[in-house]
């Protein structure tokens, strides 16, 4: 029962971060600040959700797999954020007046 409450709290925390990241994606004016909001908040949110799922996991291997998923997602989102930021740099896609 304790584990269920703990994972509910952790996953709820994770969802709050996802919500914040999504709000940032929708509300921020240009590509770079959107990326900033999205990647930072989502990485942390996924971390909380993974922690919440790990609390309920039956064995150590499941916990390690969940951790691995989080680490891979961290690496991928970090890289993609860098690549998008670089490709958006000279043109500032989706900036003010960009219609996005």
């Amino acid at each position, binding site marked *: 029962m304790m584990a269920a409450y703990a994972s509910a709290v952790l996953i709820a925390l994770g969802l709050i971060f996802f919500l914040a990241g999504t709000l940032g994606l929708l509300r921020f004016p240009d590509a770079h600040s959107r990326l900033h909001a999205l990647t930072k908040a989502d990485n942390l949110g996924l971390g909380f959700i993974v922690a919440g799922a790990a609390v309920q996991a039956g064995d150590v291997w499941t916990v390690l797999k969940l951790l691995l998923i989080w680490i891979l997602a961290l*690496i991928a989102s970090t890289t993609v954020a*860098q*690549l998008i930021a670089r490709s958006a740099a000279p043109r500032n896609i989706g900036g003010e007046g960009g219609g996005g």
Partner: protein
Amino acid sequence: MNIGAVFDLLLCLLILVVAVGAVGGRLLFTNVSLFVVFGLLLALGWVRLDAVDVALAEAAIGAGLTGVLLLGAVARLENTGSGPVRLSPIPALLCLTIAVGIGGAFLRVNDAGPRLEPMVRANLGEAGVDNPVTAVLLNFRSYDTLLEAVVLLIALVGVWSLTRDACWRQTPGIRQHARPDGILANFGRLLAPFGLIVGIYLVWAGSEAPGGAFQGGTVLAAAWLLAVMAGLAMPPTTADTRLRWVLVAGPLLFLLAGIYGMTQGAFLGWPPGMAATLILAIEFGLALSIAATLALLVLGAPRRVS
């Protein structure tokens, strides 16, 4: 109503909304992005239906690979300067007819008495694999899988046949511009080995758990594409003999096994004692060919001249 049913209902609603957005949007890029979201949500739906095999295939091929292919098509269309999308009535009507037809057929099938699942369960002992989905795909209905693999090959021939004469016998796709010590190159060094392990594992696990040649092959294709885009690997030219053998290896092995089955009784019928070995060999051969074919489909026809 329990919490699971609420979740399923919300998921169905979300899938429908995203599907309408993917078809009805004005900007091609938005449509394709929504199509990828649609694929991922659909994969979640398959997980809810306990069809993890289908979920893996949907996420890898439906959302991932098809999404990348469509994004490539959008990029090329934007270069040719096409305007915003308009819904053309005749294709729309055709799609609607097909959708209604499939929906009607589905509703009828549901009442049509016992389905094939009990037969699959009853004969699983002779299938050579413990995963009923793999048993269907590579034993009971291996005909379909063979034809799917051949269809992929024909698709690649179609893409390659669009090559301009001056570009033929060159490396597929456009020149990649990743810096050798840049972030993409390092990402490729880090992630490509993971992709290799996960891809091979998925093929291997397919005989007793969700996985198989198509899912594993897609992951292998992604790992290879990442290495190519990161500038770590150079794809072979379209004239490379070894590449062509890799492309046909899976279907050829499948066909040869099928002919061997014919000498033992039926085309594509595996003798029970041999089934496990044959299926594993075909799975790995198929995974190799599917990986190469899918990656080359994404890279597209050769477009560099010298």
